[in-house]
Structures are given as structure tokens and as C-alpha cells.
């Protein structure tokens, strides 16, 4: 299992070391070339690429966010199969160990999903899988729920996990981290719904979106992993946007950046890793009130 994990992680692109990239600085010849190459949509092999970024922010001492990104490809005569697993978890509980919860969440979910897929992806002869993607994600989240209640009772975490297989994205979501589709034409489409009090009040029409933005209890969740009796994550399957990006992030990012900030950072950066770092920088520049985590994924070719 470890070996497989290492093999899978081997394909994962490491985040580029951080350095400030201001918007006014002229691009070098090399950067322009990179942009041109990157925007060329023609690749013989359809493949998954990803980048990620994280920062504790400017006002917190502790990083309670956890993220996980696995990007893998299998291609050959039998066809090509992009396989990816992307998770963001934003722990809560302060001295009651939100970071334990978010860490347990990403490890448990990823471990469960990889164990489930291992016999089907990495065995020469495999029977057809008898569980659906949605059932696997549901079971993975339930296992994470138990792990958190065992490891750090009383704490909780958000969880937004995207399993990519071929051109399908199956999302499991609980809490107020988010998944977005970002299109080249500038459209930003949230594909998850926050399980937060403020969002619920907005849906009920008790407060306006403007009031919501300044609502004093914006952090209050009504659903979180590790908490409550009935675990009811949102689970759904959507097609991968082509062209477009899948973005996962914690509220430390979406809480301070506008949609224009998101599209600009994503569409102007030469690589996904750079785009993620730009997003983290922008969130910190906006005050960095909370931990920041972001993952960008693209299906190219």
C-alpha cells in the first residue's frame, strides 16, 4: 500500500517555492513562453494536472487546515484513465484540536478511497467494481467521522473532497469549504453549498447577501464532520469542465477574494502551482484573517 501511495504521490507536482509575483511586473520571455505553451490546448494525451497552496494566514497562530492532492495517470492501448483525489478540510475546535480533526479527515478519506480502488486500478485482472463512486465517498466520509470521534472527540472539521476518475468528478462535501468550476471566459460557478448558518439564513430570505457578507456569525456551521448524530454529506457527480478548472478552497480564501480575483489569478498565471501561490498571496494581502488552502485541477488534452 505504501509503495502505491509513493508511486501515486510521485506524479504529484510539488508547489513552487513562494515568492511574490506582483501584477505590474513585466513578464519575462520565459514566462510568456510558458503561458503560450500552457494555453495550447492540444495534447495527444488527455491528462490531469494540479497545483496547491496553503498558508496559516496573517492573524492565526495555528494552521487548522489540511489538504491532500493525488494526481495520477494511467494510459495505454486500453485507453487512458486520469485518477485524482483532492481534499480540503478546515478543522475547528481551537484547543480541542481542529488540526487533529482535519488531518484525520484527509488521511482517513484518502486511505479508504485508495484501498477501495486499488484492486480495480492496479490488478491485471479485475472484476467490475460493485460499488458506485458515490457509495465509496459516502463510506469514506463515514469512516472519517468515526476516526475524528475517536482521535479528537468534540472537535470537528469541514470536508470537501473531489474524486476524479476519467471525466467524472464525484464530490463529498460537508461544511463551508468550497468547490468551484472556473471557466476561461471568467465565469465562476460554486458547485458546493455551504452548510453554514449565514447561508441558510440567506436561503430563507431572512438576510440579504449584503447582510450575509457582514454577518457577525459567519463561521457558524450547522453540519460538520465529527459532529452530530446524523452524518449527511452532500454527494454528487458532475462532469469535469473542459476547458476549465476545478478549484477547492477553505473559507480563508473564498471569504476574502472576489470572483474576479479568482479568475484573474487562475487565468493569468503560467502554471497551476503559480496560480495557487498567487491566490494565497492575494488572500494574505487582503488581511489573511484565517488559514488559507487551495487546490487547482485541470483536465487537459
Amino acid at each position: 500500500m505504501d509503495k502505491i501511495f509513493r508511486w501515486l504521490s510521485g506524479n504529484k507536482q510539488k508547489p513552487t517555492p513562494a515568492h511574490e509575483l506582483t501584477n505590474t511586473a513585466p513578464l519575462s520571455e520565459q514566462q510568456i513562453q510558458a503561458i503560450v505553451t500552457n494555453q495550447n490546448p492540444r495534447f495527444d494525451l488527455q491528462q490531469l494536472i494540479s497545483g496547491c497552496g496553503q498558508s496559516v494566514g496573517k492573524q492565526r497562530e495555528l494552521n487548522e487546515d489540511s489538504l491532500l492532492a493525488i494526481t495520477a495517470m494511467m494510459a495505454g492501448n486500453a485507453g487512458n484513465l486520469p485518477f485524482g483525489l483532492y481534499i480540503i478540510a478546515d478543522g475547528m475546535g481551537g484547543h480541542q484540536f481542529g488540526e487533529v480533526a482535519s488531518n484525520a479527515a484527509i488521511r482517513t478519506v484518502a486511505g479508504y478511497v485508495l484501498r477501495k480502488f486499488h484492486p480495480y486500478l492496479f490488478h491485471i485482472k479485475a472484476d467490475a467494481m460493485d460499488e458506485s463512486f458515490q457509495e465509496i465517498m459516502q463510506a469514506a466520509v463515514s469512516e472519517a467521522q468515526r476516526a475524528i470521534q475517536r482521535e479528537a472527540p468534540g472537535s470537528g472539521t469541514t470536508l470537501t473532497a473531489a474524486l476524479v476518475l476519467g471525466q467524472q468528478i464525484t464530490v463529498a462535501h460537508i461544511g463551508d469549504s468550497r468547490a468551484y468550476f472556473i471557466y476561461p471566459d471568467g465565469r465562476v460557478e460554486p458547485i458546493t453549498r455551504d452548510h453554514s448558518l449565514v447561508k441558510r439564513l440567506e436561503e430563507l430570505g431572512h438576510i440579504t447577501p449584503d447582510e450575509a457578507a457582514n454577518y457577525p456569525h459567519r463561521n457558524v456551521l450547522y453540519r460538520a464532520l465529527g459532529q452530530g448524530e446524523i452524518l449527511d454529506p452532500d454527494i454528487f457527480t458532475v462532469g469535469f469542465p473542459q476547458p476549465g478548472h476545478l478549484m477547492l478552497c477553505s473559507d480563508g480564501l473564498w471569504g476574502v477574494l472576489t470572483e474576479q480575483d479568482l479568475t484573474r489569478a487562475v487565468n493569468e498565471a503560467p502554471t497551476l502551482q503559480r496560480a495557487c501561490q498567487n491566490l494565497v498571496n492575494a488572500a494574505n494581502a487582503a488581511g489573511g484573517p484565517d488559514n488559507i488552502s487551495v487546490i487547482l485541477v485541470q483536465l487537459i488534452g
Partner: protein
Amino acid sequence: MLLTHGWLSKGAGQTIIDKRGDTPLETRIFPELSDDQGNQGSPPPRQLQAGLTLTNRYAIQEVIGVGGMGSVYRARDMHFPNVTKLVAVKEMINTAPDPLVRETIIQNFEREANLLATLHHPSIPRIYDYFSVESRSYLVLEFIHGKDMESIINDTNSFLPEHQILAWAIELCDVLDYLHKHKPDPIIFRDMKPSNVMINHNGDVMLVDFGIAKTFQTGIKGTMIGTEGYSPPEQYRGEATPLADIYALGATLHHALTRRDPRLEPPFSFSERPIRRINQNVSPEMEAVVNMALEYNPESRFRTAADMKQALMVVARKTGALISAGPKTGPIQGSGIKALWSFKCEDEIRGTPAVSQGLVYIGSYDNNLYALNAADGKFQWKYPTDGGVVTRPVVLDGNIYFGSEDKRLHVVSARAGKVVWTYYTNGPIRSSPRIAEGHIFFGSDDNHIHAVNLNTGRMAWRFETADAVRSTPFVVRELVYVGCESGDYYAIDFRGDLKWRFHAKRSITSSTIGTEQALYFASVDSTLYALDPRNGWVLWRFRLGKPSISTPCIVDDLIFIGASDGFIYGIESRSSKEVWRFKTEHQVNGSPVVYKDSLYCGSVDGHLYCLEYRTGRLRWKFGTGGAITGTPLVADDIVYIGSTDHQIYALLA
């Protein structure tokens, strides 16, 4: 981010799983975890065995509840050797690896013990003892013979009578009033819900689980978590007042009266489920009291539990012995729907019609294909085959294509009904033809998919399947998708080569509909499947009540399908969540269609149903003289439907 002490103990006290069915009279001190996501599969570590005696005093008899932090046991107090004194022993196993977390958990447990020790009320269990053994702490409590309200709701198949819920509500107001008037500080219970209310053998209520009854810290920046379902909006903000308990009592009563679990609904959505719309037996007065308790703004609720009790007493006096039976309402609309015309064949119609250029085409078990005038149902011509015609005809370029149980695919001219050519298979044809890319694709009971050239009538290829093919192939992006009676499902390319295969547990008679995103079909294994069209991986499975041979229909993001459990289902296509279901009086073997904002579907009960497709609400139904197994066809605001009463009907859509 911070979590208040209050919420911490929620996790500690509440994740209790019910251990069901041991004794008819169940005894549960603490709430159960009622999800079925496999938690029962992993019992907590090292449960105490029956026969073991704690601190030389409490002889464990059996487990009466199981939770994330430990179990609840029934035990006998051995300090009373001459009588059998039973107690409930609530265990908390501190598994947290971190010392700080461990300490907080112990503090919460002690707080519950200390609080209970100061309370004296007939509806609050007495506490006898508190102690720790190694990493486990124990509360010894009054043992309650009885059953919690949630189990009572779940174990009853119908609505509980209003007078019973009313009696419990009055007692709950009493105990809340006692807690709220506690000196020096009021006690807020904060966790009123059916599973925390025990009904003892005398029928009196007992409030259990005081794990979080205390005051909130407010003004803490960070994320806090609340319990979904019963808590009022302000409790999520960290405000706990007596009015929060009144809201939660309202939520508890709403659950009991409607049998709708609020934890499965969006928060604060009670007003979207008016009590009397769900349960017409409830009196308007009772509904009004519960609604007032559930007011969104705390200041609009009853000011005190005593006030609410007063209001309930008024309801009790008004309804009195005379328990309102409620007005009996029949079907929403029964009659008034008249056929524009009908036409009678000489045997059953089990298939689906087609319409083209003012003519309706329909096959019958009298072996004929009929052509009728779409406007008035006048007979135009009929074409005889040597077997029953159950397939749906396809009209293209002046010709009609359809299969017959005489093993042939027939091609006849649309205008005159004269044969153009026929194509033989080795078995009856019950699979409807699909035309794409100059070819006709259809299956046969000869265990093959046939691809026939449209111009020449010659076979391009045939693909051998494991069993008879009775579903209609679905063709998109140069792939042919089809299921067969063995449960095998095939994706075949245009050369007749297998691209991938999937296997359902039982036969697939339902035909496929597909989008870019997924292929949808049902099986006799009672499952609606969504497969990835590129590789056959299962995206999701939806469990139907019984087997289905109905073909799904997709509109916007909703999928509709019938099943032999008599239901028509509306299911969200991305999340596979059920949006609505509608019950007919018999199996639904035909397939639904949507036209404008209505869904039309026949049932073996003989009716064609017209439902509002977003909500599943009945608009009208039309009775025929026999079972309907075909699919309606809607064109130009007219619905055409065949019935086993030998007739085809035309109705205004």
C-alpha cells in the same frame, strides 16, 4: 478556531447507538444514533461483559445502549442484596490521545453528574453515584422502564394520536418550567428532542441526557457547531435562553405529529412542512401552538414554558374527548378528464405509439400495426404480422420500422401500410428499433443485437449477448448501449466490437437514456443505475422499492422512473437523492414522459397519471379498462396512451 465547552460535550454524550430488539420493552437512557452508515459495524472497544461487577457494587446485566464514547448498561445494585434494584450505568471511555482533550471530556462528564445531583423532579432521572476506573468514568442513574419517544415514533406505522402527544407535551412544559426557574441560575436543557425523552411504563415522560445543559460562552471568534434539526437559529449563534428550549420542544412535537425527522430536512424549515398538510388528524389549535413555539424570532414564541403549557391545556379542553378525525378528502381530482377519442383493437395494447404527419401508429397483440388519424382516431389502415406487436414504431422518411413477435423487423410505407422489406431474426422481437447513422439497431430474443443497413435491409453486423435483448438500444457518439435479460449490459462500437461491459444482478429490461454525463437504466435487481458512458464505472446507484422494467426519463436535473412497488420516482441526477415519489395503486411497468411541466405515466392499476413534474403532485388521472404497460406519447398538446383494455386513447395534455 474555538469550540465552546458546550458543544464539545455534544460529541461526547450523544453518539449512542441503539441496540435493538433484545426485549419487547426497550430501555434506553441515552439517545441513539439513527443513521445506518455502518457505525453499528464497529462496536466501541472493550465493552463490559455481563456478570462483571463494578466497584464491588454494580453487577452488569446487559448493554442497553451503545455510543461513540462508551456504552450504557443495565446493572443491579448489590448493596441491596434482598431486592433487585436496577440502575442504569452510563460509561464514558476516554480514548482521546491528547491530555488536554481527555481532561475536557472528564470535566464535562463531571458537570453532568453535579448538575443532576442538584435536581429533583419526577421527570428527571435521579443520580446515585459517580466514579472513575482507569480511563473509564461512570454515572449511575435511575433505571427507566420504558422507551424513548423517537423509538416510539419509528416503531409505529401510523401517526400517534394527538391526545397522547398533547399529554407528553404538557409534562415536558412542566419539567422545562422547573429547569428554567432553577435558582440561582436558570438551567437551559438545550437538547430537547424525541430521543432525549423517555416514556416510562406509566406513560410519564422522563428527560434524559443532561450532558450539555448549561450556559454558553458568547463572543468567541471562530467556528462553532450546532446540532441540526431541533435547535433554534439563535442557538447556533451561541445564545441559549429558555426560548431555545421552547423552540426545540416545538420541533420535537412537530416531529412526533408529522413523523418527519427534522434532522433530515434543512434547518428551520418547519414552516415548509405545515403539520396539518401532513397529518390531517391534528387539530388546528394544536398546530397553532406548535407553530408559535417554532417562531423564527425568539420574542414571537411563548414567553415561558408555563405559558406554553397554558396554551396546551386550552387545546386539551377544546379537543377534549372528541379527537378530531379530520375531513376525509378523496383523490385530488378524479373525474372530469375525458378522452378526445379512443380506438379499439382486437387485443391488448402493451406498447407505445408513434405520431408523424397527422397519423398515430400503434402495435397490438392482435398482431396488427394500426395507423389512425391523430385528430379523430379514424382508422386509416392496418398491417398484419404473424405475432404480437409490442415494440414502439419508428417513422423515418416515409417508412415505419417496428419489430414483431413473429421474429421479423417490418418496414412498411407510412402512407399506405405496404411492406417495403422485412428482416428475420431467430427469436421474437420485443426490443424497439433505434435508428442512427444509416442503421437500425435493435435486439431480439435470439440473444443478439442486430445492426441493419437502412437502405439495403441487410445485416451490417450482429453482436451476441448472454440472453434475450428486450430493451431498446441507446446510440450516441458511435456507441450502442444495451442491456439484456441476463443482467449484462454492453457498450458496442459501430463495428460491432465490445467496448466495455457491465453486469447487473438481474435482468435489464429497462431501456437506457443517456446524457454526456451518464447512462441511466433500471434493472430487475431493484436498482436504478448511473454509469459513466466512457468506461461503464458506476457513478451511483439508487435503490428502488422493487424491481423495475420502466425506462427512465430525464428533464433538467431530474430523472423519473417507475417501479413494480407502484411508485413513480423523481430523483436528482447529480446527487441521486430522491426529490419525490408518487404512489399508484399497482405496479408501474410503463415509462414516464414529461411534456411542458407535466409528467405522464401509466400504471397497472389502469390509470394514466398526470403529475406536476417538479413536485410529483397529482394533477389528474384518467382511468382505462385495463392495465397500462406502455409509455404515453405526447405531441401537439395531445397525450396518446394504449391500454390492455384493447384501446388507444387520445387526451388533452
